[in-house]
């Protein structure tokens, strides 16, 4: 069985989206590099996190760099909500950023 190589532009796009997922959680919410749409997603995601887990959860998830990354947030979401629910959330976020 062989797989066709994914187009480089697709991988770049995915990488950009994954980076944006991480950046969504960062403190610098008024970052100039963000589009208005991303800003809105970030705000809604933060509000979702507060409703779903609690207002102090964000600080519990921050790593050494004081950022919530994909690596630090996904295992927690997987553990408490299940992989399927987290996948659903990620799919929606990645679609919209």
């Amino acid at each position, binding site marked *: 069985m062989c797989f066709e190589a994914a187009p480089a532009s697709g991988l770049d796009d995915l990488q950009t989206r994954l980076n944006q997922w991480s950046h969504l959680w960062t403190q610098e919410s008024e970052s100039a590099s963000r589009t208005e*749409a991303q800003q*809105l*997603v970030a705000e*809604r*995601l933060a509000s*979702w*996190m*507060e*409703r*779903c*887990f*609690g*207002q*102090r*959860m964000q600080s*519990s998830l921050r790593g050494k760099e004081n950022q919530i990354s994909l690596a630090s947030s996904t*295992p*927690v979401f*997987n*553990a*408490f*909500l*299940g*992989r*399927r*629910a*987290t996948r*659903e*959330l990620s799919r*929606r*976020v990645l*679609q*919209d950023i």
Partner: protein
Amino acid sequence: MPRLVRWIWILLALQLALGMIAYAHFLITGQYSLLGWYFWALGSLFFLVMTATECCLAIICRTWFDWDEPMRLAWGMIACAALARLAGTLLRAVSDGHLPWGYWHRFSQPSGGLFVSLSQLGMVVGGPLSMAFLAIGLGRVLSIQRKFHLVGSLTRGDRALLLLVLAFTISQLYINLPLSGNHPSLGTMLLWLSDPLLSLLLIEAILVRRSVIRMGQGLVAKCWGMFVLAIVVTSAGDAAIWASNHGLLSASLTALSWYIWFVAAAAFASAPAYQLAAISLTRESSVVLPLRG
């Protein structure tokens, strides 16, 4: 508050409101007739509805986790605990004739005191067995919370409560163990496990509470907070039974303490309802989707 949780607490409020009428009747007349009917009919029905709801919701929560996810086992154990509580409620209702919809057992009652042992079996299944399942489930949850450094350090108050719980457990063992020389039934000995298991649950509840405080007031935090509330209320009910058996409570206070079990049942049912609401939140369009258009 999620809709399902709201319904559970509305049902509890209605149950308690009706219960207060029966209680007022008892206080005024001094007769147990209306109070007895209330607990026999509405009380049994309420417990059955709440435990069945809890069981169904916990099973649904379990299905949201894949077979290799640790929380699947936790929710499986919680579902087993709910199922055991439901089975215990049914067994006791059948054996004691507390089913509100008829006296069918009177016509099918075999000789030989089967119903006495069935009642005890119901107490064991709904008591220690259910507690053991819940203790395993909460233990699993605690290990997950610890993995993510969500279990905070214990306060002085927590430590004092833990010491109190341990002292109570040891004192109960000290009272019960010498009785084992009287050749008690297996059911009786299994019922002795109730206090140590409840103590274990209280210890777990104290630790879970720490993590809930650390998270905040979200749906996931409230889910585990409801288990804490249910365990604490169960302990209070247990303490009331103990106090009543030792003549420390008046008849009116004893009757009032029976209502505490409705709160525990509602809290147990609310926990998986909160978890389901948290899972549903990831599918809600308001999380991210309104960006389009």
